[in-house]
């Protein structure tokens, strides 16, 4: 008898816990809806990737000021940073981002595809492929360039050891890989076998494949691993500024890729939060003179020609190729190069 009684209790307890949880979820949803409708200061959430932290800190202050002057409305902009892929996943899993500013279009495509939070043609909504600022891939070498590294060709030399993040875990590192690919394609006139051979030699020189860009920089700078770090230009210049200028040099290769970190309004979230208008204005402001100037100050290449001219000395001259020219688009590049069984896996095949 007591056994049956016990079972009943078990069931009841489970039911209570479940109903409490569902009730709690329901409540929190209501609460957030109510807040959006209330007349508090408006809040905007920008979900971004790691190296833009300082850039958006400055840009947010500038934009809030501009918005208040225009509309009289107070605006607080929150920013969230992490690995680009992880940030993309967090939006897919429900982080209430109004705008996404990530390292590559593939991550925003994933949001459009799996949750339909924004239309598939999101990249046409803003000028220049929705990329207000760009960068490129360069080499960071030790002071005086003891191994005489000048171009991608030097990276496949037997005596050179390389540090780069893993393209499989770091969105930014995929640009590194594609930049090397572009060089090899140019050199071997598109002979696929030879390009793969070049990439294989290059990656066999890799001493450490860190999971993210900052980790790779630390391995190279602090641990003294490797002769060359393949890095984003803005990260490389920043490391020179932040770290010891007398310890490292930047080497620009003859040809590289134009890295385009895109921005987009996460439309469904912004509509739900009543933030559509301000989110759109926020991203458009990135293209204004002030926005471009801030990007340039944080070592991103501005799209605006005049401002680029003004900061020209900062950016070394490199022949730049876009991903659309060489690889079609990110979906295609991802599929041929980085998906399981793609060329990156191939060059590591035993």
């Amino acid at each position, binding site marked *: *008898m007591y056994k049956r009684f016990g079972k009943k209790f078990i069931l009841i*307890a*489970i039911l209570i*816990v479940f109903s409490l949880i569902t009730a709690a979820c329901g409540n929190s949803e209501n609460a957030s809806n109510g807040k959006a409708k209330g007349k508090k200061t408006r809040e905007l959430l920008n979900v971004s990737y790691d190296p833009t932290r300082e850039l958006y800190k400055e840009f947010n202050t500038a934009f809030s000021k501009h918005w208040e002057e225009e509309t009289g409305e107070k605006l607080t902009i929150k920013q969230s940073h992490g690995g680009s892929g992880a940030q993309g996943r967090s939006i897919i899993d429900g982080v209430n981002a109004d705008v996404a500013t990530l390292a590559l279009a593939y991550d925003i495509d994933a949001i459009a595809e799996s949750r339909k939070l924004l239309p598939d043609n999101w990249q046409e909504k803003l000028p220049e492929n929705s990329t207000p600022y760009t960068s490129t891939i360069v080499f960071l070498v030790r002071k005086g360039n003891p191994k005489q590294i000048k171009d991608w060709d030097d990276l496949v030399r037997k005596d050179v050891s390389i540090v780069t993040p893993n393209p499989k875990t770091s969105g930014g590192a995929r640009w590194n890989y594609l930049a090397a690919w572009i060089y090899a394609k140019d050199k071997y006139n598109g002979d696929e076998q030879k390009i793969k051979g070049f990439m294989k030699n290059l990656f066999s020189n890799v001493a450490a494949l860190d*999971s993210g860009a900052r980790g790779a920089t630390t391995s190279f700078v602090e641990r003294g*691993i490797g002769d060359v770090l393949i890095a984003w230009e803005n990260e490389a210049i920043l490391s020179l500024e932040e770290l010891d200028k007398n310890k490292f040099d930047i080497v620009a290769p003859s040809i590289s890729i134009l890295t385009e970190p895109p921005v987009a309004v996460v439309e469904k979230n912004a509509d739900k939060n009543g933030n559509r208008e301000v989110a759109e204005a926020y991203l458009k402001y990135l293209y204004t003179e002030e926005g471009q100037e801030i990007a340039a100050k944080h070592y991103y290449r501005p799209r605006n020609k005049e401002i680029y001219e003004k900061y020209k000395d900062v950016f070394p001259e490199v022949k730049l190729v876009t991903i659309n020219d060489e690889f079609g688009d990110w979906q295609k590049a991802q599929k041929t190069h980085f998906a399981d069984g793609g060329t990156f896996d191939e060059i590591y095949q035993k």
Partner: protein
Amino acid sequence: MKKRKVKNVLPGFGLSMGLVLAYSSLLVVIPLLMVFINSSQMGWSGFISAVGNHRVLAALKLSFLTAFLAASINVIFGILLAWVLVRYSFPGKRIIDGLIDLPFALPTAVAGIVLTTLYSKNGWIGKFLPFKVSFTEFGIVIALIFIGIPFVVRMVQPVLEDLDPQLEEAAVSLGASRVRTITKVIMPELTPAILSGFGLAFARAVGEYGSVIFIAGNLPYKTEIAPLLIMTKLEQYDYAGATAIAAVMLVISFAILITINFLQMRAVGRVLAKGV
């Protein structure tokens, strides 16, 4: 009245059992089930191709092997540490005793970064070593030893404290040699604790990500651990593929832990049988 309600001596079984089941299912069973449900979406052929390729197998082998090695080393030095802490007194003993738990408190990423710095070629320890430690399999084992130390020590310590030194004195006075005293008197008492310490340290090491990722170098086929491959899949938004690897790790770990538990139960049984 045909059946009389039998009252248990301890009250509240029904309610507490209900809570235990609800709590453990919400926090353990359902999350773990999700791993299998998620990976079952891809079907058998997808599952096999996600986990059956050389790279995944190499990573799984590396993960389990380094975890096993680290846990074994932790057993040897864990016993030694526990022995010294229980049987001897020396200045600073309390501090060392407290330090043992530190790997629990430290964020594993910090541990990883610190170990990498120390053991890299230009690090304080690494520069005296003739071989490379950071960015090799050695590095992984070192990180796993670090995070696993407390388990063995904290399992063995209380048992040693309860173990009466008179037992050893009796053994010696009856003519047993040192070795015989250790193997026949002390070890049988310690075995269950050692086994569960080993099991915990091993289990912790298999799934470790934060500390290893910095020291491993993460080269495919060489120093790429299985949890990194899970992250790799997630980075491609391949949830099913990621959970497939997780499911394989879960099953293997579960099998190993069950075996250890079984050995432990036998060891406990032997101790009890001898005690009677």
